[in-house]
């Protein structure tokens, strides 16, 4: 019996269930390892206002046949890891247990550690970590994880002078994978990451020696997310109880205004009165029934301001536009960042971009939509036709926006940032159709589409003007020649000058002087007019 109820540690759990978290085949694992490590590196940079410079080298390791084996090396210029934290950060798998209202790419470090563990499981590889926080020393560790006990095993620990002023982390290990099958997704991953992070410099050298390099095109970065208090729409009974236990003797009004974002004393009072609570009641006095009522009221009260978006880090219209321009080279880019909203108390922000024309090709078959999806700055590469963004785009009546979806050279970019992205599945590849999220995506795309329509009709007008000038030039040139001949002159009027000045001189009506003295032989007599 005791064996059946034995506690399962996280490392062991991963070992037995690696397919559940995306490492279900050699090629999927190859993609996941690159992706997880890059994302950890990016978090170590832009979460701390550092312009990311991430370099990945993937090389083939000569093996004994069987599954192909690869060596990965990733170097970043992030904040680095403190010396004492290295073994635990890389040699022990932890759940992120901290309650955090802050946007992260993934749960803290877990994906990266699973990648390392996958190398250990499949290639019996130790991981080599080199890190510095920019001080005088660089530390190098050689580690593995004791899966049974989930503890780090240190094989080597070196210390050297930091002559090159290195700051960041370098990680190296081997794993069994399949780059051939993973190649397209990995390249797509870097491509889309460069789109959403125009301020990052990304380098990837693949096992064939092919270099993929995305230089930084802007030094502007979005404001990093800050931790904030919970929004009242996001409370649950457990959270409320815990918060009250910490402040048992404050009045309801003060409790709410001190512990929730977007709730001041006046809002708290108004909220409490409209729900029949006494603002001066101490929180410890609440009955269980009242507590339940309070939770419901907090979640449903319509007059709280939307969640504070400072716990979110949208990339912003300017950077989104830059990123789209750089990689899609469209003729038109329109972007929209929606105000922060919440679903079940989780704040989120939807950003969309629409790129049109230029290097964008029309879809190669009807029903196909070019959609680039991002969640918390991560490209989502799988299951795009199951994604809420795709459903929203396909449900919009595009005739309204003068766009033929099946023929237009149009691409969509959607970015959802949230403290909790509503993924549909554990694989975290597509976003579920939460009504609040769906509505925001719909509004954002429609807002961008309206702007696009304005730009397109402006372009149509410009094209019309150009065509008009062309027509005018053609016929005015003829008229210049004909009138010179008729007037028995030699030098033709300058049509280019006329077009340039747009015939600006005031028009004079009745400019043509008809024959002034008709003969009286009658045959030429003018009409009564």
């Amino acid at each position, binding site marked *: 019996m005791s064996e059946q109820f034995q506690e399962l540690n996280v490392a062991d759990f991963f070992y037995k269930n690696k397919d559940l978290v995306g490492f279900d085949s050699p090629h999927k694992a190859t993609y996941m390892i690159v992706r997880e490590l890059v994302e950890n590196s990016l978090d170590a940079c832009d979460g701390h206002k550092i312009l990311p410079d991430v370099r990945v080298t993937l090389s083939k390791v000569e093996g004994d046949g069987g599954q192909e084996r690869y060596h990965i090396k990733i170097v970043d210029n992030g904040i680095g890891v403190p010396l004492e934290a290295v073994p635990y950060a890389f040699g022990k798998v932890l759940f992120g247990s901290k309650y955090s209202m802050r946007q992260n790419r993934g749960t803290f470090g877990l994906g990266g550690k699973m990648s390392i563990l996958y190398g250990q499981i499949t290639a019996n590889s130790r991981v080599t970590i080199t890190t510095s926080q920019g001080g005088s020393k660089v530390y190098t560790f050689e580690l593995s994880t004791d899966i049974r006990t989930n503890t780090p095993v240190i094989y080597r620990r070196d210390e050297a002078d930091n002559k090159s002023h290195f700051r960041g982390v370098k990680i190296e290990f081997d794993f069994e994978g399949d780059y051939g099958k993973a190649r397209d997704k990995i390249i797509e991953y870097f491509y889309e990451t460069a789109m959403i992070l125009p301020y990052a410099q990304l380098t990837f050298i693949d096992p064939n020696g092919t270099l993929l390099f995305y230089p930084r095109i802007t030094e502007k970065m979005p404001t990093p997310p800050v931790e904030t208090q919970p929004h009242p729409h996001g409370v649950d009974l457990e959270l409320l109880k815990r918060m009250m236990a910490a402040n048992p003797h404050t009045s309801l009004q003060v409790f709410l205004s001190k512990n929730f974002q977007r709730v001041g004393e006046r809002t708290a009072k108004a909220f409490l009165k409209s729900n029949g609570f006494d603002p001066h009641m101490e929180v410890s006095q609440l009955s269980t029934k009242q507590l339940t009522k309070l939770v419901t009221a907090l979640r449903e009260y319509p007059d709280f301001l939307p969640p504070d978006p400072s716990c979110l880090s949208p990339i912003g219209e300017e950077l989104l536009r830059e990123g789209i321009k750089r990689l899609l080279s469209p003729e038109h880019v329109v972007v929209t960042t929606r105000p922060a909203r919440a679903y079940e108390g989780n704040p989120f922000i939807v950003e969309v971009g629409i790129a049109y024309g230029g290097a964008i090709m029309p879809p190669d078959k009807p029903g196909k939509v070019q959609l680039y999806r991002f969640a918390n700055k991560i490209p989502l590469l799988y299951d795009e036709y199951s994604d809420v963004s795709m459903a929203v785009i396909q449900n919009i009546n595009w005739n309204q926006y003068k766009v033929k979806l099946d023929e237009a050279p149009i691409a969509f970019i959607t970015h959802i940032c949230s403290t909790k992205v509503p993924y549909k599945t554990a694989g975290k590849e597509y976003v579920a159709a939460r009504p609040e999220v769906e509505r925001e995506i719909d509004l954002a795309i429609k807002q961008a589409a309206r702007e696009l329509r304005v730009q397109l009709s402006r372009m149509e007008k410009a094209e019309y003007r150009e065509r008009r000038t062309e027509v005018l030039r053609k016929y005015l040139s003829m008229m210049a020649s004909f*009138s010179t001949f008729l007037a028995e002159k030699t030098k033709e009027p300058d049509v280019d000058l006329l077009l340039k000045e747009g015939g600006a001189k005031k028009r004079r009506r009745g400019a043509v002087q008809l*024959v002034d003295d008709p003969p009286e032989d009658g045959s030429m007599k003018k009409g009564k007019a």
Partner: protein
Amino acid sequence: MERNTDRSEFARKALKDLGTSIYNQMEEGRFPEVMIPSRQTNNIYYDPKLEQYVLGDKRVVRSADNVKHVKPLAQLLWVARIGKELIDYDRVSTLRDLFYMSKNIDINFATQQESDEAVYDLEALLSMPRESFNIFPHDRGAIFGDLTVRYRVKGFKDSLINLTDNPDGVNIGPALDNAELVKTTADKVIAIEKGAIFIQMIREKVHEKFNAILIDTTGQASRSARLLIRRLNEELGLPVYILTDCDVWGAHISMVIISGSVNSAHITGLNTPSAKWLGFWPTDINRYKVPTMKMKELDWKRLAELKADPRYKEKFWKEQLDAFERLGLKAELEAFSSKNKSVSQTFLVETYIPEKLKELGAI
């Protein structure tokens, strides 16, 4: 009355003025424009004083500023340019020919109708018929009689020709159109609707018997024929008599010679207001007792149309239309042959024409 006006010189000057106006506007940095009398039906009026249809005061502005106008404007100038060339080189062209000429240059006449329109516009703008700038219809109509003309056409310049020289008559063509009418011994003009009757009348020496210049209009008179008739009337002072079948169509052939056609409302100077319909009137039917035919549906329809035309409100014309309506009959000129004594002595020439000329006070 200036008898020696060279129409070509006059047209050349008008075309030069048009070109100069466009040229100057462009030189001054303006998109050139012209104002053309509107040829829309709502701008066509009957002018009782001129006894013809004319255009009203409505003007259409064609401005190069307008992308829809610039092409027709360039087309108009192209026609003007061709007109000047035709005059300069003493060549003639037709509407059809002009349309084909336009294929030489990227002026984009989609159909001949479009190039025709450009010609009509130029006629309206310059207020002169296209014959003035040497665009002619295919020859239609002939003239015979003692009339001496001096051609202005290159190669025939200054040659004097008497129009009795050709026993079949002389084509009313471009050369004659602009020829100087030098002298005549005739004292009247008889225009005949039918070529066969025209030839018959030459053989019967009608021109001598009645001292007349004979003109074959071959149905509805062409603009050249109408112009020539007017010149004979205006420049040489000859009264004009028109001989047609006895039907509503014949009546209208006379009317167009007298007061012009709606289609040519933009050009004045093609009609001869003093010309008279000599016959064959419906009121003559009972008098001469010749074979007749019943009016057909088309005839009735045309009769109704003519009755609505203001020109037919005049007493004489109203009587004739009423006669058609009352009788419901029509007759051809050839019907008089039923009363011929012999082929060389026709009733038409021996009896009908002199009686009618007397009736109208011509002899």
